[in-house]
């Protein structure tokens, strides 16, 4: 029985395998959990394996949220003009249209693009991200203390 074998339950002298992860994640029904713990008390190999996967689980759970780079939200809004795609359909369909008909489709697509709509979309650029982008790029080839050190202070304009 391999160390990491998939073991639905376990039988007698077999090892726990992925039952260990289920135990860690609270995914074992009570009787099976009890049985697993009993096995662990007597099995150094499984105890060691439990420690290993438990450690990996903790590390991944401790990973922080990731901030997207500047321009990310703007790109989502910019590229999010799906109307042009859906209005034009796939290329095969388009080939069947021609001339004026295609122009009609273009007009329809453009309307959905917002030509007729009153104003561009409101955006709220992330000032801290832009400041950081500026300072890091401007610090190249320049005095680091002057140009770079200030971004050690988080930018907040809320006050």
């Amino acid at each position, binding site marked *: 029985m391999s160390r990491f074998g*998939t073991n639905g339950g376990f039988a007698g002298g077999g090892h726990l395998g992925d039952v260990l992860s289920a135990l860690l994640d609270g995914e074992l029904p009570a009787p099976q959990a009890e049985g697993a713990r009993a096995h662990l008390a007597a099995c150094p190999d499984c105890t060691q394996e439990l420690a290993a996967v438990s450690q990996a689980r903790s590390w991944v759970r401790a990973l922080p949220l990731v901030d*997207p780079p500047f321009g990310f939200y703007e790109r989502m809004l910019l590229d999010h003009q799906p109307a042009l795609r859906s209005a034009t359909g796939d290329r095969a369909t388009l080939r069947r249209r021609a001339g004026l008909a295609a122009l009609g489709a273009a007009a329809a697509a453009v309307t959905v693009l917002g030509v007729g709509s009153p104003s561009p979309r409101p955006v709220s650029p992330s000032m801290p991200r832009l400041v950081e982008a500026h300072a890091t790029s401007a610090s190249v080839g320049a005095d680091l203390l002057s140009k770079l050190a200030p971004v050690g202070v988080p930018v907040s304009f809320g006050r």
Partner: protein
Amino acid sequence: MSGSGIPTWEEVARDHGRFLYTVAYRLTGNSNDAQDLVQEVLLKVRRGLETYRPGSLEGWLSRITTNTFLDETRRQRRRPVDLLPEDPDRVVPPSPGADVALAAEALPDHVQEALRALPEEYRAAVVMCDVVGLSYQEISDSLDVPVGTVRSRIHRGRALLRKTLA
């Protein structure tokens, strides 16, 4: 949330963008692919909002994100193998750096790198369980695989991670 309980895609983008980007980043391991993945997801969200049943919005979002990610990796595998193009600006590859004694510490970057080294199916299962916090049943429903497979992928993924980070 709009009154009807169904969020608009703008609300999704604004309120859950960071979460979406995080999940996408943990799955893909790099910023450009993560952004592309979120783009795809938002397109689907826009189309799929009518079928959304109120419940865990983040669970629903991560389901779409993970499936989109896996679909894309499967599609790439079918293409003839060629070297993934390096970022043309990365003329100097990152230096190997000093060996780092990890002990009980594992820096987020190392964990992320180890995640990226996992086979995609294992990575997806570990991310859904330990980054998003879904139950095995929820992951099973999302990926359309049996619970036993979910459990096995999570376990193997964690074991490989531990080995890589040893």
